[in-house]
């Protein structure tokens, strides 16, 4: 079915059945599927090692009581949701799992998950919080250990050349995604925020080569679109992980237009290419540790650490910022007051939605979104 569809229709189709798609792929190729969470352990390495990388997503609003047998009620509701998915057996199609030590919660999810539901392959990818030369050296070594462990699991030796080729393929994805993002610099934007996120979500469940085709089709399709009605306020969405387009659709229904973002799965991962260096691990380190913007990494005190958000807001001609934070998300909750004040100085109003990863009560969220749009 999804093969007959093209472009955005196909992306939306895949995004709503990511696990089905990945299971089919597993069957077709006979390759193991390695699930990953967070953006530090490079899918490029998984792919080069002959496995299928699969970005694990939660199911917002789904029951999480299954997680209660293993973890406390207080804690990131997204992490609890993922653990509940695992406990319900919905992720049993995974042959392996790699979780990076991004924040405290995700790091600890790894231990609980692998203790209670061991997988054929699992690895915690450890990540320093600082960007000192020694932290970078650690990260580089960690990349090497990760590669080695995958090689042992799949039996495929990853040569530098193979890895470079895989990186180049992923970079092609990045270029195309940036081109699509750029279509939203215009007014009215040619592609909606919710469509863009579905497209990115589909990307976490298809191989890089196939994704190139999907992105190219979408680009052609979107460029040929008749200009939609002038949209309401142009917004940047900042915050914790968003792996479901419901929230963007709520914003769109409230009359706003998400033209760019600073979220995981969103632009954080696609904003720049992986530098294509002689030692491929060096480029991966630059990209995934040094350049990847996540508040779990220490970029020192001061508001300079948010300058990239201001630049992006300017580039996309943004009217306001909507913050989306998942309950108990320390890294983002810590940054919120500093960011809010910094944006205010730049005359960018900010609305914060604090949510338990369910987008409910929808009525109340929409009312707040509408009030914000009107103010803009």
């Amino acid at each position: 079915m999804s093969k007959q569809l093209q472009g955005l229709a196909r992306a939306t189709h895949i995004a709503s059945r990511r696990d089905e798609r990945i299971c089919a792929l597993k069957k077709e190729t006979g390759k193991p599927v390695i699930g990953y969470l967070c953006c530090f352990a490079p899918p490029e390495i998984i792919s080069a090692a002959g496995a299928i990388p699969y970005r694990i997503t939660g199911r917002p609003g789904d029951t999480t009581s299954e997680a209660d047998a293993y973890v406390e009620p207080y804690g990131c509701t997204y992490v609890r949701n993922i653990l509940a998915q695992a406990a319900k057996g919905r992720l049993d199609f995974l042959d392996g799992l790699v979780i990076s030590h991004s924040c405290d919660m995700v790091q600890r999810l790894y231990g609980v998950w692998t203790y209670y539901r061991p997988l054929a392959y699992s690895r915690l990818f450890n990540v320093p919080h600082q960007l000192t030369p020694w932290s970078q050296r650690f990260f580089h070594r960690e990349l090497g250990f990760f590669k080695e462990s995958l090689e042992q699991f799949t039996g495929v030796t990853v040569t530098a050349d193979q890895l470079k080729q895989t990186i180049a393929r992923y970079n092609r994805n990045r270029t195309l995604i940036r081109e699509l993002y750029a279509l939203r610099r215009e007014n009215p934007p040619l592609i909606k925020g919710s469509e863009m996120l579905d497209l990115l979500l589909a990307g976490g469940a298809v191989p890089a080569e196939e994704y190139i085709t999907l992105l190219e089709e979408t680009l052609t399709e979107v460029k040929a679109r008749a200009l939609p009605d002038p949209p309401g306020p142009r917004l940047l969405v900042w915050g914790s992980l968003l792996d479901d387009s419901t929230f963007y659709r709520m914003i769109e229904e409230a009359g706003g237009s998400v033209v760019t973002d600073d979220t995981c799965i969103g632009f954080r991962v696609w904003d720049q290419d992986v530098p294509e260096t002689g030692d491929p691990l060096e480029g991966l380190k630059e990209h995934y540790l040094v350049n990847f913007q996540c508040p779990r990494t220490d970029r020192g005190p001061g508001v300079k650490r948010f300058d990239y958000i201001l630049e992006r807001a300017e580039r996309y001609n943004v009217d306001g910022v909507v913050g989306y934070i998942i309950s108990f998300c320390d890294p983002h909750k810590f940054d919120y007051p500093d960011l809010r004040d910094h944006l205010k100085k730049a005359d960018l109003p900010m609305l914060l939605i604090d949510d338990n990863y369910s987008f409910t009560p929808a009525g109340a969220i929409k009312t707040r979104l509408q009030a914000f749009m009107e103010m803009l």
Partner: protein
Amino acid sequence: MSTSEMSRARRHLETTKKMKEMLPRFFTRMIERRFSNEPLAWCMVGVPPELLKAFDLLWEWPENFGTMCASRLVAPRFIEVAEGDGYSQELCSYVTNTMGYCKLVKETGEAPPESPLPGGMGNPSMLLGSGFICEPRWKWFQSIATRFLDVPVYSSDPLSPPWDVDPHDPRIADHYQQLIREDLFGQVEFLEKQTGKKLDLDLLREIMALSHKALAYWRDTLALRQAVPCPMGSTDYFSAIIPQMYMVGEAEAVDFYREIYQEVKARVDNKIGIVEDEKYRLVWFGLPPWFNLGIFNYLESFGAVFALESTYNVGDNFEVDLGNPLEAIVKRTWQRALRMHDYGSEVMPELCNPAVFGGFYGSKLLDEVVRDFSLDGAVMHLTRSCRAVSFGEVHTKNRLAAMGVPSLIFESDMADPRLWSDAQIKTRLHAFLETMRRQD
């Protein structure tokens, strides 16, 4: 909460009661130096205090300031100021306590009158954060230095191997120790730059020797709590960690821990327990509710004693060669990581500097702990605002249940008394003791 529901700890040991004279003497000396504007570092647990002492720096622990504000019930005042500034109630209450405090200092130019110490936490000339145990402990200083204080920050960033990686594999051991070592060198370089002094390795060695001596007495004291009846309880335990935090490397601190050892030893020899009729021997998991340490005395009134606590536990990782004192810090930190790994670090994959303390959770050595301390049950404090330490309680509960050891998890917070509901918590604790009695 109502203030009348909170009660201060009643201690049992003469030595800890003596802290009432010893600590004010120390704080007076320290505060005089602070008032004469000597360099002061605010630091996080995980920063080796011996190193600070070797630089003759003054230091303050905002975490500990949080416990003091909690026990004087002034924390809500500061926390509410931080909440007004946009800091979520879900964030660590030690953090929000400091944020509110800093905001008031910035607005008024002086320490708020409610501060537990005269002059509050002083005016720091640097912030030394740490990634030990949790993320808040470096985000906190990042935010302080962004909003309130324009001073340099160094956050140390050690990591430890996850539970399913073999830390005895020499490549893994090197991988992690290299990070710990280079990070320590970075910290030393930062301190040298800030103080304009070169690190005196001989002095550091002397300070560490005294520090480790004190820790050895403390470790041996804690082992004595295996005795039945238990000679020392949690109110003394949670108080007696303070001298090591502030007076590290001082002869007076060594004397304090020697005396505590001798006193507890004498109690063991004479079979003196902390309650007359010891009915239940328990282990405490999590941070204590600092605003209501009297809860331990409440439990003692039913014959329940805590023979062990999972937090602030030092272990014996400081038995390292002090020839090269910096390498000794690396080694003891690594040994701590190994020890945590031995416990089973699936839910607490962090390490902590044994000069002060860490915690234990995990799966592998629990049965040893239960056997050695003759434990009947466990009480776990699920602190809403500190997930770093309370995460893993359900897992530990599962592990204990498999061993036939009952446990209770109750919810509140370490510093925010607004999250304490007295009647409900006491009813649950009481019911738990009753169940244990029925199981006898």
